[in-house]
């Protein structure tokens, strides 16, 4: 399957990665090559096969619904690029 520049632009947008216009054609051609490789999977008969969710059949363990951690505001914010007054700070989201 061939990926066009518009699709490459849309995928970059969905992935929230800024790609300059002049880089889109090369990106589209790389996607096309990778998807062409992936398309070998269409040769496989997968009728009646369930998609794998876990390599080891297991039920996830349960635990009591109680607070086990907390009061770590300082540690949580320690690596933030911009933290103010106990919060993560970001550009204005609401006009």
């Amino acid at each position, binding site marked *: 399957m061939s*990926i066009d520049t518009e*699709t*490459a632009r849309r*995928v*970059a947008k*969905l*992935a*929230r*990665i*800024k*790609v300059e216009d002049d880089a889109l054609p090369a*990106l589209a051609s*790389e*996607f096309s*090559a*990778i*998807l062409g*490789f*992936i*398309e*070998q*999977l*269409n*040769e*496989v008969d*997968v009728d009646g*096969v*369930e*998609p*794998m*969710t*876990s*390599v*080891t059949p*297991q039920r*996830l*363990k349960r*635990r009591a619904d109680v607070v086990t951690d907390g009061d*770590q505001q300082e*540690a*949580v914010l*320690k*690596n*933030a*690029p*911009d933290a103010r007054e106990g919060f*993560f700070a*970001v*550009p*204005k*989201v609401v006009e």
Partner: protein
Amino acid sequence: MSDLTKLTIAQARDAMRKGDTSSAEITSACLTAIAGADALGAFVHHTPEIAQAQAAAADTRIKAGDAPDMCGIPLGIKDLFCTKGVPSQAASRILEGFKPEYESTVTTQLFDAGAVMLGKLNMDEFAMGSSNETSVYGNAVNPWRRGNDDTALTPGGSSGGSASAVAADLCLAATGTDTGGSIRQPAAFVGITGMKPTYGRVSRWGIVAFASSLDQAGPMTKDVRDAAIMLKAMAGHDPLDSTSADLPVPDFEAALTGDIRGKAIGIPKEYHMDGMPEEIEQLWADGTAMLKDAGAKIVDITLPHTKYALPAYYVIAPAEASSNLARYDGVRFGHRAKLAQGDGITEMYEKTRAEGFGPEVQRRVMVGTYVLSAGFYDAYYNRARRVRALIKQDFEKVFADGIDAILTPATPSAAFGLGEMTDADPIQMYLNDVFTVTVNLAGLPGIAVPTGQDKQGLPLGLQLIGRPWEEGELLNVAYNLEQSAGFVAKPAKWW
């Protein structure tokens, strides 16, 4: 004692217990070796103060007779492991300056057992790569060279720094992680032992996630016995990782009897790839003969969906990566782009991720985004997960037929030159994992053992694949192969 850095874990353990040397001495020898090995690009963050303090504490424990096997052993830690207060960047610009407030379960267990951290090791960015060339720190370099040719070779990837450091005797062993071959391929490229345990054997908590259904940490060591010792210290159930198995951890070292008489070793016909170098075919045939001579039964087997493992992997791994890497948004940790007047939060995300992720990571995140997007989810992602189920069934069938372990080449070639693959399309690089990736998709344990050298003197390795949770038996077959192959070559020091 001389050459303290060349000791295996087992030798160092025994020598320290006898009082012939101390952790402080071995650690100091390693720190000196590291300081003289910048040209290898293996260690990217140095932690000599932590190492010396841990070594002193270990020596106290050893003197008191309270010394687990890993006590006092100096290790390198792959940069993918979060280590409290020490930069943990996954070799990415987007985690520049990130110092975790917590310690990964694996490093916690190793340090609780008395192990010593010398520093953090180079790798491909977010473990995405097979040559360590996608790292923000620059290349890690293989200590091996092609005869007298001084071309710099790759140590493989993604655990390239770990491989280089262990092969060059900068540390006694190192942690690695393996999503599609990232422990076994670099181990084979530098002539050391590398093991990926069964999925769920080792906790993933505190390891920067790439593809969560495939990622598994394991030991990279100088021999098979060391892999057994170190795996025991790394493994075990962890309530913080819901996929970690609540199973007892056996004494893997005790499983190393070397007796493999009557064991059935499968040789899968699909691993004879077109265009595979004669040397690899020969290496594989030699390894098969060694196991046969040791009394194993050699059985031709078929794993019919092998051909589809790489394409399935290159749907599933990028899909999971696109989801896991969504957290790098410039808000909570790491890099945030400088914003222009009027930029809002979307521009912040887009610019941050464009600046912070390198080209291979961007490519995989976007491929993952595409295969998960509306209209393509079934055609790509669900189809790949169905093929993955078939790949796992292939293995289940041969194990049900009585196969104890499977022998294959570890890599399709010896280490290649840094930069040699730059102009190739990404798929050429992906082919490095052709023999290893099936093991991740099926969640099985696999180990790479050095068994020979190519015409130019570069190490070559074979891979053994075992039944789930049977790492002890797998290590024992590997131990036998190691003894028969007698690989003892070391790279000549040029750095």
